[in-house]
């Protein structure tokens, strides 16, 4: 399917496949995978395409090995990626922490499924806390992008590579089983991947022309480590000021502001449209970056709202960032389903009606 895609043409692809294709077009040279539902099509696409297009596909013996192969490839300065689903991402957290501590740019895909434990294989958003607040041990952040369509799976994959390189930071696409498995028309734009000079740090052989480069996250001297972490946080501050991304839908006069990302935002958008048809002044705010969380735009979108409704495919994780963004200045209600259950627009609409009655 979609062999040698042409720019601008429309293709019908699964989100998993579109993301893989976009990654290759963005210059991803190495992919290290391990099978897990519902991300497997991504690895399969890479297995088929990478050898034909000058790249490397390798099925690792475990998620631990895959993420550390990613660390190795990123260390040597090439664009590289790994993908998994929730249980596998937990295993990858070790390598992600090391990459964050070694300032390595790399892209990690999480096509989320229900948890905890082995959980289910149905779509979920219950790894929000993990991705945005605790993607491993230590003080660090990674960029987190949340697509909500097959097109965005492609577009954000390309952006993730650029931004990871720009800030020397791991970047994650936090998708879910719904986005990975569904097909929608997608087109690939002719984009020139941002070229970031990595010659100042990459461990790719010093050719006897420079001092040796060390990729490392170990600093036994505490004040030194503190200094390095603080410098990294200065970079995070720049990221937070420049890289917040979001989308607003009918927010201008909204009295009830629904907040949702990814698959949940799709369901919410249908509900908001139906609510509007009933005369309920609802709007939708959709974070596209989860780290950095688009708190500035949310604060603005929420300015005229009387109540917020956070909706997620989880027991409520992003809601804490929503409350923080508006300093708990307004009530933030929650509606979510978990375990792999996706709510219907009708369920959200019912909640909107209920909230509307209380305004």
């Amino acid at each position, binding site marked *: 399917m979609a062999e040698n895609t042409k720019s601008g043409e429309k293709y*019908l692809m699964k989100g998993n496949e579109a993301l893989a294709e976009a990654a290759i077009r963005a210059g991803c040279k190495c992919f290290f995978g391990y099978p897990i539902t*519902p991300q497997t099509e991504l690895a399969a696409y890479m297995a088929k395409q990478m050898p034909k297009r000058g790249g490397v596909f390798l099925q690792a013996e475990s998620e631990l090995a895959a993420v550390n192969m990613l660390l190795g490839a990123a260390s040597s300065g090439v664009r590289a990626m790994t993908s998994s689903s929730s249980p596998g991402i937990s295993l990858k957290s070790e390598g992600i922490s090391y990459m964050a501590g070694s300032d390595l740019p790399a892209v990690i895909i999480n096509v989320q499924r229900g948890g905890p434990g082995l959980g289910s294989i149905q779509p979920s958003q219950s790894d929000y806390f993990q991705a945005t607040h605790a993607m491993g041990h230590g003080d660090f952040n990674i960029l987190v992008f949340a697509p909500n369509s097959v097109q965005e799976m492609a577009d954000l994959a390309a952006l993730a590579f650029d931004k990871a390189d720009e800030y020397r930071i791991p970047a994650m696409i936090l998708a879910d089983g719904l986005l990975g498995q569904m097909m*929608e028309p997608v087109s690939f734009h002719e984009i020139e991947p941002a070229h970031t000079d990595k010659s100042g740090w990459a461990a790719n052989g010093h050719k006897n022309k420079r001092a040796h480069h060390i990729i490392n996250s170990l600093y036994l001297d505490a004040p030194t480590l503190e200094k390095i972490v603080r410098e990294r946080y200065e970079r995070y501050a720049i990221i937070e000021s420049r890289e917040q991304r979001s989308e607003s839908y009918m927010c201008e006069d909204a009295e009830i502001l629904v907040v949702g990302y990814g698959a949940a935002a*799709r369901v919410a958008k249908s509900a908001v449209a139906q609510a509007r048809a009933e005369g309920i002044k609802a709007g939708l705010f959709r974070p596209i970056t989860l780290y950095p969380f688009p708190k500035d735009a949310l604060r603005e979108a929420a300015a005229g709202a009387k109540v917020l409704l956070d909706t997620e495919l989880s027991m409520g994780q992003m809601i804490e960032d929503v409350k923080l963004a508006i300093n708990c200045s307004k009530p933030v209600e929650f509606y979510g389903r978990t375990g792999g259950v996706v709510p219907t627009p009708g369920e959200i609409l019912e909640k909107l009606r209920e909230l509307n009655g209380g305004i």
Partner: protein
Amino acid sequence: MEISIILAGFGGQGILFAGKVLAYCAMEEGKKLTWLPSYGPEMRGGTANCSVCISDEDIGSPIIQNPDILVAMNGPSYEKFIGAVKSGGKVFYDSSMMSGVEERGDADMYAVPASDLAEKHELYGGANMILLGKLLEITGLFSDETVERALKKCVAPKRARLIPYNMQAVALGRKS
């Protein structure tokens, strides 16, 4: 106007493929669409289904709670989804695969002996496309020309010889 279609049957009956043909037709005509398969262990020899939404507007959830149209290729699939079909919706089912079907009084029912027809006309494995033909004829969703264009996109080049068989099956369904 959004149309939601659930197609369901045994794995191997070509139910995901029929859904893909509809999805490609929609794409060919510049419409918005989503195609969502059931996935996981149920794909291994059990029942399979896919949900196709077609619209002129952006589509929210690709998950269909109450379909406008149901295409059912076996009894278990029919049983699973018949109750969910919208009142006034349309149901297309392979009557050669099920007996004693309890039809919905508030939906338009189209019993097509698709598997028998496929066998009779030596279009083996074409029951899915026969049902699809019937669906296209009744709903007027897509022309044969669009279907042929769609087939060219969703059939791998090395299997392009199968396109005429599929078109034959669609034609047979339209006339059934």
